[in-house]
């Protein structure tokens, strides 16, 4: 391939053109991330003008080892992993099934694609409001359905395990459309000749899926898995909108928010602890990094093995 920008000084032009993007990345993404790492070693409150003291590893020690609070933090960490596993597994599987269904050449598939994708374009607050109304325990639609069976529930305000399960369900409902769209895009890149050849060879539907669709969907599978894993590890907004700060329901992302902005004690005078929240953020970042990198490594090897 020839080099379009010539020689001498002009060869720097591509790098110069990259510069704004790089600077923007440093300012918007990398800068704040680095600042968070530094903050995690301080007692910063996040209040402009407040003194900031260097306290070394104290925030990490407190988060991981101090009293019962550290046990609660580790429980939140465990809950985050459960949330991630449940959301990824179900959202990925359902997204794939729905994509296969709406990728058929049948009348009305566009309507179903729109319907399945619609929750994605709603904001978290709207999603939360809709489900709060649906799950209203005093005569809401879900309560009425349950009453027909002679049962009742407090739904989001009741047992923490039930509230947690509802957040998993709503997270999947809210984001499955994205997973579906990525799979649809992947399905549409598979040449129809491949399917025709498989059918001529006598493959049944399952064999076509296993030996043609699934291997050729590898790039979409990888993208979806990574997006689902990282997205669910970092989730917190739905917890805020649907459940609030309740024992037995917090995931790490929400714990960070609640700690950083003084919403953990039930008192309106709670202190702001952004240094401590920054340490929790770094722990979450390391978790995402380790899981994300490991999954990416496995997926890349798989992709190389299948697609060469």
């Amino acid at each position: 391939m020839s080099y379009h920008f010539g020689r001498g000084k002009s060869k720097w032009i591509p790098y110069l053109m990259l510069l704004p993007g790089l600077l923007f990345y440093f300012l918007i993404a990398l800068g704040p991330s680095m600042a968070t790492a530094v903050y995690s070693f301080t007692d910063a409150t996040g209040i402009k003008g407040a003194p900031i003291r260097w306290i070394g590893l104290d925030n990490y020690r407190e988060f991981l080892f101090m009293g019962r609070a550290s046990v609660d933090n580790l429980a939140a960490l465990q809950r985050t992993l459960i949330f991630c596993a449940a959301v990824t597994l179900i959202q990925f599987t359902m997204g794939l099934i729905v994509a296969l269904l709406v990728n058929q050449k049948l009348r009305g598939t566009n309507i179903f694609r729109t319907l399945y994708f619609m929750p994605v374009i709603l904001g978290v607050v709207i999603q939360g409001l809709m489900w709060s109304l649906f799950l209203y325990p005093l005569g809401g639609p879900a309560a009425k359905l349950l009453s027909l069976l002679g049962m009742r529930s407090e739904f989001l305000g009741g047992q923490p395990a039930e509230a947690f399960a509802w957040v998993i369900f709503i997270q999947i409902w809210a984001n499955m459309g994205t997973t579906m769209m990525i799979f649809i895009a992947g399905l549409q890149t598979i040449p129809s000749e491949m399917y025709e050849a498989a059918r001529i060879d006598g493959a049944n539907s399952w064999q076509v899926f296993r030996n043609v669709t699934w291997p050729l969907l590898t790039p979409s599978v990888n993208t979806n898995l990574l997006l689902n894993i990282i997205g669910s590890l970092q989730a917190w907004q739905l917890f805020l909108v649907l459940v609030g700060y309740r024992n037995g329901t917090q995931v790490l992302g929400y714990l960070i928010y609640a700690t950083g902005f003084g919403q953990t004690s039930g008192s309106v005078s709670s202190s702001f602890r952004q240094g401590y929240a920054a340490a929790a953020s770094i722990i979450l970042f390391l978790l995402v990094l380790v899981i994300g990198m490991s999954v990416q490594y496995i997926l890349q090897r798989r992709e190389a093995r299948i697609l060469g």
Partner: protein
Amino acid sequence: MSKKMFSFLSLLVAFAILLAACSSPAATGSQTEPAAAAGGDKVTLRVLVHQNPPMVAFMETFNQKFQEKHPNITVDMSVVNANDLSTVSQTRLSANDIDVLDIFGFANGAQPYMKMVDSPNWQQLIEAGLLMDLTGQDFLKNYDENAIKDAGSYNGKVYSINLGRVIYSGIYYNKQLFEENKIAVPTTWPELAAACETFKANNIPCMTAGGKDGWPIFVGAYGLIGAMYPDQAALVEGLWNGTIKWNDAKSLEMWTKMQVYARDMMEEGASGIAGDAAPGRFASGAVAMFPGGSWYAPAIEAAQPAFDWGYIPFPGSDTAADNQYWFGKYDQGWAIASNTPNKDASVLYLKEFSDPANYQAFVDAVGFIPTQPTAKLNTKIGADIAPFLGNFRVGYEQYWIAPKGAGQFANPWASYFKPFGTDDDPKVLADKVQADLQAGLDAVK
């Protein structure tokens, strides 16, 4: 295009993007207004209040009158949920995006017996220099000296004027339902329990609360804690120094009663009712009682003006004499951002609000117990509060700061019990709560 021209254009684009990225939004927005604050120049006064429907309604009327009187000032009032007030205050103060802000009465100050505790957020804001020193302002004279000292001062300087005390240890009751079911107004715990049993037997839910917001469930039971431990400051000190434990015999009695409150007294589905909607549900006549703060009274009146209700201290003790206290806190106050470009307009706003006539209209609308000595307790709830007002005590949660390392159950919250939480054994829960607290006390030794 020549290579030189291409290089030049690339550089230009790079610098333009760099400059756009580096420019501060604050430099282009409200920062242009400082010079316009005084005199007859146009001023937009940014005011922040927390969601409390009668207060918001009053403020809208007050703002309108204020603007008519001062046509050069436009009041831009934002309303946020009470849970979010501290977060929004902090971010908007840091961004120089607020002039006058609603701030709760100063509470949760660190006491000498507390170790390794963080300062409460109001103290953090003052220490960061974000709240204006109001010491010496004329309008302070309109307020009770003790209220200014207890709820708005720090290190000898005044940073907030507190607008009223509220009670959160009372129960609203539906007079008509009590009469129809021939139930006397309860003055002891056994009477309260018996009343609930009768109502439930007649298919009337006994109590409701705005459980969706979380805190109304446990705040409703703060009266129960108060009946057991009338000296709430001593309770907090006792918990810190170990002379009182959440699993001792007295506390166990409290937990046992809390379980009855959460499981048997509260109506099914209360966890889904929003805090703002609970007064309306009570006013609809569907439930017999509503444990809640005095600030709900105007909302109940607004929902059903003809509805006949009363307000009694939570009868948490078996002895009537122990159930004659009110527990509460200093509620809303006003503070001014120290960096406000609209200082004159902000001070003027507080001055006019503090005018005795305006203040009387405020307490009449909101139902606060006044902090201006000349103001009268004219409201309907005022008549019910007055007999026990001499027994007003600042409540537990205004003193309590949990030690670092304490677990998430280290609080006396009724919402731990089923159906709102997972616990159904008072003894097991009491041990768990004390263990969570003790872990924190041990960690900061």
